[in-house]
């Protein structure tokens, strides 16, 4: 358990806080302030994973979000499992337990490699493309291998004990990234009075300054960071969010920030007192965004550049200076720019050997170059590492003189013994977030990288827009801070604060190098990896271009470059450069791929927040809900409503099945009396002098002569003539109506009427108010309904005074009520409406008086059976947006002669709506009385035709009728109205073919006498 690679001193780790952790079953030690990656390097762990396709050993390459290899599965217990965690971003904590995700069966042994090697073509470039283009069976063959070998982790099988939160935030200026640019912009905006949110994805704010060699105001950069952070945290207009990744940049400066609040403390949130949220998703609407995301160093692409011990130059410096870790003993550095020289200086200062610096430039010069020279470090000009030697760890670097223009090795190859190769091919601005907005990045030849395109409300500053020297970054960022503050409309004097002093460093010009030439052509050289996570090689990209893929988007899909969870943060530009070379174009001509949210993976917990389990969707309860619960009702979701589905009784200790309960409830209604909680029906109060005219325009039938006290059933169509909703509307007064809608359609109908009123007929004087929740509705229905209601109302129920489709006002159980004689069962029915807060009292009173009539509560299932027996439709079940009132046989409800062309009328005379073979609404009676047809079953006329059969319709509703003693169904059948008495066939999946007769959809009481008694 010795940390063999830990430096005796230095770094920002807390040596007084030793920590133990487990990786792949082995115990290791680290310190507070370590990341899992720095701790693994400190312990000399070279291999952290096996590669995706070739199963090659892989080590840590980077120190941040761009890490492609060190992706682990985290969690000591099943419930705590987190897949797809980058070790470079995971803070170490006591007892941290992690595994390699690609380690099947073991990172140290190479089983998958055997598969790869034995069948060299197991996953050639274009594998995905070819697999998906081939017949489906090929995917079936490969899937299990791919899933097993390539899984980037697994989700936990047990419930997550943690909670997560969403927070809506607003600010003047959101600053993303807390490096030198972000810090300067933040402090400038804050001092000028802007409301600032300042986020950074790392454990500590400071970015590159935390491992910088430079001085700011004559103090070490990290000390300046502390001073600025102290100031910012003292300001009330600043919200500091460390450990917070800006993951998505959406429309109109809406940015989602993923804050990890406890993931540096343990597997799940600490439980002392109230359990705090493990993560927060901040939904920030920023007036202005300052993007200070910096740049990622670009590795060079050379042969065997994936062998453990190949790192990014900057990552090596970070590990040495920030974590006190030496990733090796003997370094060869391969660079294209001055800045990377700092790695050699850091390495040598830490007491280890720099074997050589291979510099691709013919004549490197600049302050850092001179410093290296003065320290006696060997610099080999116009050269690069063309190949790494070693299998489980680098053992040597092959360095040769190269000519980038002719893409060839021009000198002899020198093999330098070393254990570490660090490379730097320049820097790629982190343009991901700006790209989320859809803006196209712009290529700049002078910095050899893409910079963000223009986004309204966005100011990019520092490395992300290609400004690299520290003194320029600070000037640029101070300016950005002022501009963003002013653009946000903050009233400020906008005094440019005094800029901190930074010595201007003289750097030599960088050169362009992406793939390093090899003595052999790419196709035959050892593998030169471009995308380490997806095992995409330079040869693979070359092959793609030779197979005719020219657009980078196609090349990407062909090779799977950038498809990993790292989204190709390291490899994309190199891949494009290689494609450009092969196609003899420039990089901007080849293009860049579009980045999409999220920047780094976000846990489902953070995305869901509190919107899970009971809070996933709002639940609506009627005023009688508690009674239903106490009666043991089973519930059904209807939209957001919880409605009683049926009320199973327990008879002799045995609970009724649904079939038994529904049969009992149905017969109770047909034989004596039942009661339904119908409160969920949508109710819209319509008032105004033009209310009647308006109804005439939105309903298909006539409303001109409906008297006060009368009720009418209406059909509502869209202007294409298709039925959208139905319900009853009662005339409460000359200018006052109450409309009911389907339970699910209430909000839509309300918006529909507002649409027509506000956009087409604003001259109509009419007002709509939703009163769904104000009124509870109780339907008493059955032959004994009048007798029961008479006991508790002062309303005259005489059958000639209070007729079917009348409504009356009075009291029921002593409270004000509106009673509607409407029937959805075909029986004598009264719908009692009372204020919702009186409902329970009325309901209980009804049961007190109803006991002698065996008053039976019934639920939605019985309601469905009873209405279907009467051939009454349910919009959305028996109709699907392609059914006209005529298709339903409801010509009686269409007022063709109304003066105004009501919504839907004109479309009913289009050729398509007049076709004789439209699917029409009919009843189906199965020939076998025991059969209940399947809803959705397809109907054919000839059961003996060959597949594919001509389908002429389908079953829309199907039940067993306890009243009739047989199954029955409603259906739509082509030309069905002319097919009464014909036999149709319903072939089922299992080969059974049911026979049924087309009949009228009204199965019970065809003359409709029972509801009129």
């Amino acid at each position, binding site marked *: 358990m010795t940390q063999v690679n830990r430096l005796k001193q230095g770094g920002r780790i807390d040596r007084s806080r030793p920590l133990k952790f487990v990786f792949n079953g082995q115990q290791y030690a680290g310190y507070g302030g370590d990341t899992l990656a720095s701790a693994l390097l400190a312990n000399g762990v070279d291999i952290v994973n096996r590669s995706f396709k070739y199963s090659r050993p892989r080590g840590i390459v980077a120190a941040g979000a761009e890490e492609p290899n060190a992706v682990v599965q985290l969690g000591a217990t099943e419930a705590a499992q987190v897949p797809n965690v980058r070790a470079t971003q995971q803070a170490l904590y006591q007892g941290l337990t992690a595994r390699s995700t690609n380690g099947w069966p073991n990172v140290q042994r190479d089983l998958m490699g055997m598969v790869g090697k034995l069948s060299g073509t197991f996953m050639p470039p274009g594998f995905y493309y070819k697999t998906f283009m081939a017949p489906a069976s090929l995917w079936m063959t490969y899937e299990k291998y791919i899933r097993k070998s390539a899984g980037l982790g697994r989700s936990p099988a047990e419930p997550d004990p943690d909670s997560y939160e969403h927070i809506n935030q607003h600010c003047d200026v959101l600053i993303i990234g807390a490096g030198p640019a972000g810090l300067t912009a933040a402090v400038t905006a804050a001092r000028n009075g802007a409301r600032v949110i300042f986020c950074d994805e790392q454990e500590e704010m400071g970015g590159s300054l935390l491992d910088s060699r430079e001085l700011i105001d004559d103090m070490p950069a990290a000390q300046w960071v502390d001073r600025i952070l102290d100031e910012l945290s003292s300001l009330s207009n600043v919200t500091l969010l460390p450990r917070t990744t800006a993951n998505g940049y*959406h*429309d*109109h*400066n*809406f940015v989602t920030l993923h804050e990890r609040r406890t993931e540096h403390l343990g597997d799940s949130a600490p439980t002392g007192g109230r359990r705090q949220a493990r993560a927060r998703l901040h939904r920030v*609407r920023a007036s202005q965004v300052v993007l200070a995301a910096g740049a990622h160093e670009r590795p060079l692409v050379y042969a065997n550049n994936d062998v453990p011990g190949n790192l990014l130059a900057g990552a090596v410096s970070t590990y040495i200076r920030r974590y006190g870790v030496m990733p090796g003993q003997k370094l060869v550095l391969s660079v294209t720019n001055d800045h990377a020289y700092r790695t050699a200086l850091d390495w040598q200062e830490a007491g280890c050997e720099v074997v050589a610096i291979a510099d691709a430039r013919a004549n490197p010069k600049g302050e850092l170059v001179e410093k290296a020279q003065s320290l006696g470090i060997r610099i080999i000009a116009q050269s690069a590492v063309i190949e790494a030697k070693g299998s489980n760890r680098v053992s040597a670097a092959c360095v040769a003189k190269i000519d980038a223009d002719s893409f060839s090795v021009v000198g002899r190859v020198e093999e330098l013994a070393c254990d570490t190769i660090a490379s730097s091919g320049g820097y790629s601005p982190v343009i991901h977030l700006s790209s989320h907005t*859809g*803006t*196209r*990045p*712009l*290529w*700049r*030849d*002078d910095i050899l990288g893409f910079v963000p*395109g223009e986004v*309204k409300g966005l100011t990019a500053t520092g490395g992300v827009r290609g400004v690299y020297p520290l003194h320029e970054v600070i000037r640029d960022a101070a300016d950005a801070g002022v501009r963003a503050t002013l653009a946000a409309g903050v009233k400020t004097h906008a005094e440019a604060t005094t800029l901190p002093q930074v010595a201007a460093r003289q750097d030599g010009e960088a050169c362009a190098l992406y793939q390093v030439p090899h003595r052999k052509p790419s196709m035959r050289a050892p593998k030169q990896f471009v995308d380490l996570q997806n095992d995409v090689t330079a040869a693979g990209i070359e092959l793609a271009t030779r197979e005719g893929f020219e*657009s*980078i*988007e196609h090349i990407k899909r062909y090779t799977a470059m950038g498809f990993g969870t790292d989204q190709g943060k390291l490899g994309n530009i190199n891949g494009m450069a290689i494609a450009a070379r092969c196609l003899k174009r*420039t990089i*901007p*001509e080849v*293009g*860049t791929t*579009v980045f999409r949210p999220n920047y780094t993976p976000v846990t489902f917990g953070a995305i869901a927040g509190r919107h899970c389990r009971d809070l996933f969707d709002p639940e609506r309860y009627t005023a009688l809900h508690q009674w239903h619960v106490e009666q043991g009702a089973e519930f059904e979701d209807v939209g957001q409503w919880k409605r009683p589905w049926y009320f199973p009784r327990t008879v002799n200790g045995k609970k009724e099945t649904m079939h038994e309960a529904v049969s009992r409830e149905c017969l109770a209604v047909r034989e004596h009396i039942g009661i339904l909680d119908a409160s969920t029906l949508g109710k819209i109060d319509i008032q105004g002098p033009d209310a009647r005219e308006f109804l005439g325009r939105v309903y298909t039938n006539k409303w001109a002569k409906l008297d006060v006290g009368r009720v009418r059933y209406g059909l509502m169509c869209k*202007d*294409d003539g298709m039925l959208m909703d139905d319900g009853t509307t009662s005339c409460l007064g000359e200018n006052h109506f109450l409309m009911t809608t389907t339970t699910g359609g209430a909000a839509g109908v309300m*918006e529909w009427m*507002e*649409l027509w009123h*506000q*956009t*087409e007929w*604003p001259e109509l004087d009419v007002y709509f108010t939703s009163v769904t929740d104000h009124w509870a509705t109780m339907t008493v229905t059955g032959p004994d309904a009048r007798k029961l209601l008479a006991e508790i109302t002062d309303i005259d129920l005489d059958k000639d005074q209070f007729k079917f489709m009348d409504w009356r006002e009075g009291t029921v159980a002593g409270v004000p009520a509106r009673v509607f004689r409407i029937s959805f069962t075909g029986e004598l029915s009264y719908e009692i409406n009372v204020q919702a807060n009186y409902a329970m009292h009325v309901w209980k009173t009804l049961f007190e008086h109803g006991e002698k009539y065996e008053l039976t509560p019934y639920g939605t299932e019985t309601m469905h059976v009873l209405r279907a027996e009467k051939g009454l439709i349910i919009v959305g079940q028996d109709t699907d947006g392609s059914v006209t009132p005529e298709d339903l046989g409801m010509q009686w409800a269409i007022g063709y002669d109304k003066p105004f*062309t009501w919504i839907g*009328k*004109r*479309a009913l005379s*289009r*050729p398509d709506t007049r076709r004789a073979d439209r699917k029409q609404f009919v009843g189906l009676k199965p020939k076998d009385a025991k059969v209940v047809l399947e809803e959705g079953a397809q109907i054919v006329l000839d059961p003996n035709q060959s597949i594919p059969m001509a389908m002429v319709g389908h079953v829309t509703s199907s039940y067993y009728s306890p009243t009739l003693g047989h199954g029955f169904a409603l259906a739509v059948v082509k030309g069905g109205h002319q097919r009464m008495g014909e036999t149709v066939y319903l072939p089922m999946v299992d080969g059974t073919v049911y026979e049924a007769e087309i009949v009228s959809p009204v199965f019970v009481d065809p003359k409709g006498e029972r509801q009129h008694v």
Partner: protein
Amino acid sequence: MFHIYCPYCEEHREEEEFHPKGQAHIQRPVDPEACSDEAWGDYLFFRDNPRGIHHELWVHAVGCRKFFNITRHTVSYEILETYKMGEKPSITAADLSEKDKQAGVQAASGGWQTVGARPESEALNKEARA
């Protein structure tokens, strides 16, 4: 997620409060009975799908319940203006700057997911070299 200024509430509110209702300024023919089947079909089913300026009908569904119009750029998603029912847009496709027209706005050039050499890139690089 859009940030929408409701011209009736006179406030910016989150998109969650609004419902999009399709293309704006689609007028129902005054005399539907006099419409040919084709004209009625056009009214019912055919809508523009411009790359660039688009006028849309929205409703502040869980706010003031008022319908209003938005002029939106379908490429940048920028909301250029919102205006009340019965008002005319002040920004139309005809107002597009020459630059936008050259850049292919309003032309179904497609392929915008891929970055090609753009005039801006060239200008930028000339500047950088100078």
